[in-house]
């Protein structure tokens, strides 16, 4: 992809450029500039994280590095738009020195040559970093591709079933609910329905919810049916497990009245599911701990519930039957999380690593969590901070040991879309078998034939 006639183009537009103002705003008087990019912005999306970078990371780092100036390059848009921008930057060998990316992008970025293993960029200092011993192997996996470490994980999350205890009481269900099979979920849904709950169960489905359908719905269910989407170099096609998952969707959305099919189709369906849960219209909702931290959080949540701690219950997602999950588990979950990578084209790679390591030090991690408790990547910090929130402690202690991660390959987003389309088809009345074979056909086109698809 070479640019054919660079001098000619430059000449042609030179006039236009010369007549206008230049770009230079760098005040570089011999000092070094490092830039951090993240999909967060003050006053907008992920505001806390942007504030932390501006008001803690930058001043603290500059304190110990006198001649270094750190800049922050915020965004605050849809993930796929942010991803596009970062990819374009790295493609043209430009961009910030330390970059925030979703763990799921690491593989495709590495394949494209946009990022390099940390040791290749930051040098031997990377392997000697004190933090590695604090990050559990599974969480480190978020930044690993092909056995090499490309990024430092910032933290992780886990998926559970949230339920409304008030509605459960009304339906004669226990205050502490511990379903052990999919049938238990359906049974509870039926009781809720009898008790007049408008939407007994909300499991994200359809394409409008995007990745939320895959992460909150299909993949945890698939894990519960004993299968992963990508294992041993092969993708999972229309296997029995996939059919079971789609069958479960059919039980909820196929006219039983246990779920609201329309809600799955709406452009803002997920936001609405949050609002409806907060209003006491939804009995059971599968979500990540984000729901607890940022949605029903009593003060600053999107759909705040003043009585969250009393009303909102949470429980692990059961396998189809006890012992039927992946690795023979009784309960399953899925996890993701953001990582920070180094720009391989950084002019000051060693310093960039210092900055990156600094952002993942215990002190920095603690400072980032000051505003909002969530699961960081560091065990030392978690053991100190998470005691403040029993729900997040539950995730860390009970859910994360059984969790699984998505495959970080470039084709994954399309496979994910194919899965979403399969659930969408079921929601709008197609049979589970038909939806599964349509998915299989689509998958063959995506991953290069049936040879790359397992049973």
């Amino acid at each position: 992809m070479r640019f054919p006639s660079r001098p000619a183009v430059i000449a042609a537009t030179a006039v236009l450029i010369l007549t206008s103002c230049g770009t230079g705003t760098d005040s570089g008087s011999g000092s070094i500039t490092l830039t951090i990019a993240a999909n967060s912005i003050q006053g907008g999306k992920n505001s806390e994280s942007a504030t932390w970078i501006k008001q803690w990371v930058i001043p603290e780092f500059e304190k110990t590095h006198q001649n270094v100036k750190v800049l922050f390059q915020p965004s605050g848009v849809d993930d796929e738009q942010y991803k596009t921008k970062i990819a374009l930057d790295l493609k043209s060998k430009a961009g910030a020195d330390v970059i925030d990316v979703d763990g799921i992008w690491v593989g495709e970025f590495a394949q494209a040559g946009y990022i390099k293993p940390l040791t290749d960029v930051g040098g031997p200092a990377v392997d000697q970093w004190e933090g590695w011993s604090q990050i559990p192997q599974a969480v480190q996996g978020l930044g690993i591709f092909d056995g090499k470490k490309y990024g430092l994980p910032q933290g992780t999350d886990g998926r559970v079933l949230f339920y409304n205890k008030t509605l459960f009481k009304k339906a004669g269900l226990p205050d502490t609910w511990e379903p052990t099979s999919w049938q238990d979920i359906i049974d509870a849904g039926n009781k809720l329905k009898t008790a007049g709950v408008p939407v007994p169960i909300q499991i994200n489905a359809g394409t409008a919810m995007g990745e939320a359908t895959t992460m909150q719905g299909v993949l945890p269910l698939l894990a519960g049916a004993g299968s992963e989407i990508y294992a041993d170099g092969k993708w999972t096609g229309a296997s029995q497990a996939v059919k079971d998952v789609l069958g479960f969707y059919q039980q909820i959305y196929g006219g039983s009245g246990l779920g609201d099919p329309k809600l799955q189709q709406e452009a803002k369906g997920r936001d609405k599911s949050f609002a409806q849960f907060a209003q006491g219209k939804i009995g059971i909702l599968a979500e990540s701990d984000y729901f607890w931290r940022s949605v029903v959080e009593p003060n600053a949540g999107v759909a705040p519930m003043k009585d969250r701690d009393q009303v909102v219950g949470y429980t692990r997602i059961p396998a189809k039957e006890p012992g039927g999950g992946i690795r023979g588990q009784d309960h399953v979950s899925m996890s993701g999380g953001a990582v920070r990578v180094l720009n391989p084209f950084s002019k000051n790679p060693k310093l960039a690593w210092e900055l990156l390591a600094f952002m993942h030090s215990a002190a920095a991690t603690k400072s980032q969590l000051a505003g909002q408790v969530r699961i960081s990547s560091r065990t030392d910090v978690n053991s100190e901070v998470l005691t403040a929130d029993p729900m997040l402690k539950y995730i860390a202690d009970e859910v994360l040991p059984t969790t699984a991660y998505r495959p970080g390959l470039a084709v994954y987003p399309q496979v994910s879309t194919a899965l979403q389309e399969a659930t969408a088809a079921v929601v709008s009345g197609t049979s589970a078998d038909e939806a599964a074979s349509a998915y299989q056909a689509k998958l063959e086109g995506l991953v290069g034939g049936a040879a790359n698809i397992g049973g």
Partner: protein
Amino acid sequence: MNTDAAGLGKGRAVAFVLPALALIAVFLVFPALWTIYLGLTDYRLTGLAAANPQVVGLDNYTGALEDPRFLTSLWLTILYVGGSAIIGQAGLGFTLAWILRARTGPVRRIVEGVVLLSWILPSTVVGFLWFALLDRDEGTLNALLHTPGFAWLLDYPLLSIIIFNVWRGTAFSMMLYAAALENVPPSHLETARLAGASVPQQLRDVVFPRIRRHILTNLLLISLWTFNDFTPFVLTGGGPEGRSEILPVYVYRVALRDGQLGVGAAISFLILLINLVFALAYLRLLRGQRRQQEVAAAGGPPA
């Protein structure tokens, strides 16, 4: 027309056109040709194909033409352009221009102002306005009609975005036809009216022959713009299940969400070809009409 009345001369004329052409060459033709070239490769935003894209010839085109989702999207787009631009915007725009032509004063100013306002509001804002209007649970329209829970955007997604686009773009057609109607001498209309011609007859015999060129310009531009209109994405996201996934939304999904830039580029070029077909059809239609009229004129005045 077509006469160098000011004595510009070829040299100055070239100098006048050159700056625009230079900018267009660099910032339009060049990236457009590049995009068309990308359409012949398997280029992707990330992954192995990003590092080392291969020329795959017409694979992207055959792939798209075999993809039922593309064909559905193409059909939806044709309905969308036909319904919202050709019938909706041009029809409503002309009607408004026709009705308002004789009026002056506040009514005309207010109507024109409101219609124009919906044209110039930022598209980012407009999406929200319509979402607030049509939403299933809290939409203003359901509150007004006492139809709580009626899912306009889910049950009639295509119709919703068609009506939306009529609202959005009628202003341009209205202005263009208002200008065109100035070319129709009022005395001719008056004569036709006194001769007992009904409004449709007046339009057919007196008005349309004089504004044919404006109709052509109007249809060319609004079709092209509507073919490339991404704003409905804010309203329906292409859903539910692709039932309002017009081609620009399809391209967005393929190129940005799935990162398949090669395929997206190929489809962009297909959109260009379809626009070309539309343009040729308009030209033929309006030229054919002229010939008919010449024949009619040769055979004496119409009854």
